[in-house]
């Protein structure tokens, strides 16, 4: 009886079997790449805002502190988005005729709030709190990047759980002195020695159990 398959079929079947494993691996690698990509995480994507508010202009220039607008960052889970009246504290006196600021003035006149587009969004099953992170010496720039260099704010970090855990597992890599939390340009010179010392001094705990964030 003649052979049904040619000898080359052996090679072909081996290649297919080994190939299948690599193809599966490749597919998983691609999926892994996609979910970490800005397409999924929104990292680095600018959002159009009702008023093209520039953090660079307000922070780097006049040096306004973060807490002037984000008032509840030390007391609440939510850092707070300033009410229109905060804008008008200054803009009632300067740039009073700027066309760019018309929505702000309109809001103040009519009492209709400004509608901003959210940049940093966590899923509903994650409960993040600003206050405790600030209290334990996590700098604004550590997560939000150099806001003082952003015209329109974008999300500097991927905000994936992997990224959260990077710090939660080893806070000493990122903790800075409390007085430097709101300093945008802070650069640690000796994080290797300072980090562990601050972790000890502030009683920073490495929280990696699920209910630290998920409940």
């Amino acid at each position, binding site marked *: 009886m003649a052979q049904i398959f040619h000898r080359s079929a052996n090679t072909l079947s081996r290649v297919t079997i080994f190939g299948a494993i690599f193809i599966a691996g490749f597919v998983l690698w691609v999926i892994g790449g996609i979910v970490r990509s800005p397409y999924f995480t929104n990292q680095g994507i600018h959002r159009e805002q009702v008023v093209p508010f520039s953090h660079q202009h307000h922070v780097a220039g006049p040096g306004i502190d973060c807490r002037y607008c984000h008032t509840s960052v030390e007391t609440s889970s939510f850092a707070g988005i*300033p009410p229109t009246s905060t804008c008008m504290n200054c803009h009632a006196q300067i740039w009073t005729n700027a066309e760019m600021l018309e929505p702000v003035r309109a809001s103040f006149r009519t*009492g209709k709030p*400004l*509608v*901003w*587009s*959210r940049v940093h969004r966590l899923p509903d099953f994650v409960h993040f709190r600003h206050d405790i992170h600030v209290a334990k010496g996590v700098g604004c720039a550590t997560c939000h990047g150099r806001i003082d260099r952003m015209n329109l704010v974008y999300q500097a970090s991927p905000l994936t759980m992997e990224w959260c855990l990077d710090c939660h597992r080893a806070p000493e890599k990122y903790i800075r002195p409390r007085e430097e939390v709101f300093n945008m340009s802070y650069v640690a010179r000796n994080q290797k020695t300072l980090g562990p010392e601050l972790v000890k001094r502030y009683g920073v705990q490495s929280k990696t*159990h699920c209910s630290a964030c998920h409940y």
Partner: protein
Amino acid sequence: MSDNNTLNFTEFRARIGDLRGKEFWRSLEELSRSDVFDEFFAQEFPQQAQPLEKGVDRRNFMKLMGASVAMAGLAACRQPADAIVPYVNQPENLIPGKPVYFASAMTLSGVAHGVLVESHMNRPTKIEGNPEHPTTLGASDPFMQASVLNLYDPDRSQVVRRFGDTATWGEFIAALQPVVNAARANGAGLRILTQTVTSPTLGAQLTALLAQFPGAKWHQWEAVNRDTVREGGRLAFGRYVHTHYDFTKANVVVALGSDFLCDGPGHLRYARDFMSRRKVRSGTKSINRLYSIEAGMSGTGGVADHRLPVKPSQIEDFARQILAGSSTNPTVQALIADLQGNRGASVVIAGEEQSAAVHAVVHAINSQLGNIGTTVLVTDPIEIAPVNQLASLQELVRDMNAGAVNALLILGGNPAFDAPADLQFAKALDKVPFRAHHSLYYDETSNRCHWHIPEVHFLETWGDARAHDGTISIIQPLIAPLYNGRSVHEVLGAVAGGLEQTAYQTVRSFWAARGGDDATWRKWLHDGVIPNTALPVVAVSAATPPATGNQQPATGIELEIRHDPTIYDGRFANNGWLQELPKPQTKITWDNVLIVGPRTSEKFGYTADERDPLVNEKRTRFVDLSYRGVNMRLPVWVLPGHAEDVATVYFGYGREMSGKIGNGVGFNTYPLRFSDALHGGAGARITLSEEAPRIYPVACTQEHQSIDPKLVGERGLIRSASFEGFQQNPNFAKDPHHGSDVTGHGSHDTNMYPPYDYSDKHAWAMVIDTSVCTGCNGCVIACQAENNIAIVGKDEVVRERELHWLRIDRYFRGNIDNPEVYHEPVPCMQCETAPCEPVCPVEATSHSEDGLNDMTYNRCVGTRYCSNNCPYKVRRFNFFHYADYDTPALKPMRNPDVTVRTRGVMEKCTYCVQRINAGKIEAEKQGRKVRDGEVVTACQQACPTEAITFGNMNDKTSKVAQLKALPTNYALLEELQTLPRTTYLANIRNPNPAIAPAKSEHADRGHEG
């Protein structure tokens, strides 16, 4: 089912007799121990075990899966952009992300319950008791907890209506004006019908209105009206009075058909006070004793040391025996001796379903015992105008029929639905030329009125009301009216002139004239009470008992009619939380049934033979009830401990115009309420209905997700002793028979898991004192409100899919005709070595550093292995999309600190981890440890008797650690070495040693010493 498994009640009795009252049991089915029941129990979710009716072949399966994958690919689009909308001018002291609490008050039948309302960004989300308020002392009942759902209810009336069509407030005013002018001219024909009023402002407005229109009349009616209590007081003291009680001073309490621990004005305070004398701690020398003489099993009867099930008509007789000081009944004789030994330190209390004569006799007993002025406090009435509401309503109906009523304003209530059937209120109402109804819902009464005005919810308006002791609270709004509602003050203002006055102005100006300057007013609002406004105790003459009526002992079956324990008189029918709340004793949800005792049910042929095929408490038979010419088909329910020849029905169900949730649920039993017998009477006949359908499904949760019944007796799930027994052997709950060790917590020594060191962390733990739990359900619904727990509906409850994280297990002990009742709240045990964790394939449930058993919703893939492996059965699975994601009105109601769970996700009690985290973070920010009592779980906060204690077990000075050190502390199924963090204090009762039957019934109290 084989014949030898079919037991009748006689055999049940024999079986229990064999056990000599030793064994605990949960339901009649469990007692029958049939094969079907055992099989039912072996299944985790029995209703899911049925195979698919039509098989799915491989080809179809592949097609569906292929489509699903393709869809999933499409769905994985980017998140749409979210908006953030800040204020234009941010209010002072408002920190986004942090809740603010406001004091206010909720009224039920006129009586104020002080509340603290949690508000997230001006959205009320949760209600707690106000610790400063004398009625609540920080506790809350199911009605208070669930009222927040009523606020957001999309079915609430949203617009003024004329003949059912949309109209405006202005049009109503215009239509009202000629009517008012006519009334002003001839001075008569204007009638106002309200519910019970204790509000001083409303009272002043009504008084002013009556002065302005001398011919007008003010009527009051409420289905739960306490007429008998008022009339009893008048019989005894010659005038209307109000009575409240101080249970902290009472050593002996006798409840005559009274459920004072779970129902009626002041019940939260009474439960706290009464149970404060019942907690057995180190050094407790004595505890109080409770006798209950009642027909249906109430929460109070359940925790009584001695309960005497009697017919309602016999209660007066028993009351007179107590007054006379002698009885042929040995229990009553011992009770009398006990009362006489505690003169001035006892309370006899009668329920509002008892006749005025019973109340008068009870006043005479208390007067004779010297209790008045010490434990029984008599004051002036808390109502503005105490009346006999039935007489008031009868007068109104008579005048309406006679054509003497030109205009009727119905302010609140639903009389077309809840007035006694024989008055034919609705028919009389149709004869009134101008009728307007002011109510929260467009209901049965609104439907018969020309005008309907939507009412504001109490969280949307200003007002005031008196508490059970007379203390006045100001009601303040938490949110602007969601649905164009008008307050009662505005409606009255429209009648009496003062149209431009808002509710705030009316209430504010009333109190401004009574010492409420701005600073004082702000303090009243902040505290939630106006200080020193409790009504002073008045001196009353010794009560005179009414002459002996000729009490003919009634024959046949007596009907007892009570308001529903969860939906009250029907006003909460559209509240899904209350509908799905298991009723305290029967554990039935979404329904009302005809409750009878085992002996009675045998009499009309509903024997265990009949019942057993309807096993699992899922279905029951219809019966035909005939009572005073009314015939009604109702599902029957056999409840152990129900008095013989008594049938009990709850009213409030069978609404037709309550809203989407409540319409057509249950049976309308109001036709059984006659004006001469509001609370029932003799002459009921019950026969098994042969008309189809004979069978009715009942959503009873008793045997749902409960611990294997085979373990109930053997493993000491509930442990109990008499106080005497406890004194002789304080360690009775630690008997090695139960496999417990001395710590009552278990130890790592005999455990296969490696020990984990919690010593430098918090070790959150809970202790539940079963001695003081009345099964009132406050904790269950508080948990629901705090943790965004969805309701599932009756059909899904029948399939055992209800989601309550906390259930209250009911245990009976002894004789099925008069068992002792035990309640055991079962939340997650937070086992240190939790059996649910190793079986999860995706590690969705794992342990936290504090020893909490975490459930991570976003990881859960819904295998349900964890639930299968949980010996305590505390895990709940979302079989469907139960949470309502779509109704916009319900979105702001949810607790923003807790995830709303979706389909396919397991969930369970977290020990309120959101509160724990908030407490820990606050402490961390201040650089200190969490203080004892700083973190309070929702169930603990609601509990009126403080049965639940939560805290850090590592802190040896904490309350929870001290309770765990008590000898009565034990864990459920501790021999499984799960090391549960939730433990229980054994139930200690105080039976009277002089009462022989109780002794012999429980002769074998085993290891109780």
